[in-house]
């Protein structure tokens, strides 16, 4: 899908450049853009290193597990048909916490484990259960506490206050996740 978007952008751009007589500007822009990508990356290395360093500490100290233990009430509401002590619950909780903390690398294997556990409760193996739908909707709408990549990009792009969007992003992500959960609960009843 990205493939078609990408090729449309380039081909449409080139044609439009030809029509508008802007081909020189287009060529210049292609070269400048490629150069800017590298400059941007150089700026990002330090910030990424800082975050990944913190993430490693969070991972090794067992922070994710510690927070997971306090989540059982919400999890019971979200996944009423999964037994409380089923391993799927543990894996899903840890996946959601890892996502919230921005630990993408730790979250994916936990999420896949959770899907396998949910599949073991599934009677119809090629059709998603309500629990699976809810779990993936929460994953897709993401409840990231700190949008690290965005903050990093803003700071490299010369923002006066790169972190000013953390609060607004937190509000927006809460609303989007809530909308996803409500939609899922309603659609599940049909």
């Amino acid at each position, binding site marked *: 899908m990205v493939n078609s*978007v990408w090729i449309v952008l380039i081909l449409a751009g080139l044609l439009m450049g030809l029509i508008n007589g802007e081909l020189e500007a287009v060529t210049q822009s292609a070269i400048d853009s490629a150069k800017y990508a590298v400059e941007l*990356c150089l700026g990002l290395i330090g910030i990424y290193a800082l975050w990944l360093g913190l993430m490693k500490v969070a991972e*090794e100290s067992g922070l994710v597990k510690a927070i997971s233990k306090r989540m059982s009430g919400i999890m019971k509401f979200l996944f009423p048909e999964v037994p409380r002590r089923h391993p799927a619950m543990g894996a899903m909780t840890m996946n959601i916490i890892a996502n919230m903390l921005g630990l993408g690398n730790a979250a994916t294997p936990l999420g896949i484990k959770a899907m396998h556990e949910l599949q073991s409760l599934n009677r119809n193996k090629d059709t998603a259960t309500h629990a699976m739908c809810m779990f*993936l*909707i929460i994953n897709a*709408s993401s409840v990231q506490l700190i949008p690290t990549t965005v903050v990093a*990009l803003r700071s490299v792009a010369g923002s006066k206050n790169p972190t000013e969007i953390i609060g607004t992003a937190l509000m927006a992500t809460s609303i989007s996740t809530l909308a996803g959960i409500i939609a*899922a609960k309603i659609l599940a009843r049909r």
Partner: protein
Amino acid sequence: MSEFIKTISVLAIPTFIFGVLGYGYFKRINVYEAFIEGAKEGLATTWSVLPYLVAMFVAIGIFRSSGAMDVVIKILTPITNFFGIPAEIIPLVLIRPMSGSASTGMLAELFKTYGPDSFVGRVASTMMGSTETIFYTLSIYFGAVGIKRIRYTMWAALIAEIAGLIASVIICRIVFGI
């Protein structure tokens, strides 16, 4: 409300650093060693994003400098104005559910063109943090267990994305004005 959101922005990162490092120290792990271990991955991670950034930057650079972007924005403006969404972020909205790296590239390009502290830049930043790459997430997780009928998952996920987009615009208006 606006003050409260601004306070969260100021406090989030210091609190996070304090919480993570404090907890690690309290749990008696070697915090410094673990940090260094993780930080080493920073280089590799950044490097792995580079090709995606080049691809997206060049494509959007061509599209924008040719005047094609202006045409698209002009066509979309009446519709997006109705919802109060800046038309400039529509390409980002469309690619966001498809690819994380591609949308990262597009966000960076928006910052370069409009500036990260412009209204467009702020709404784009806020929206970017509010949703994930839906299609990718669904395909790896459902693919892993061989589910073929995903029922209402896609619809609910798209509703969440649209809610996130509209919320981003409204919240940015309230907090940053204009």
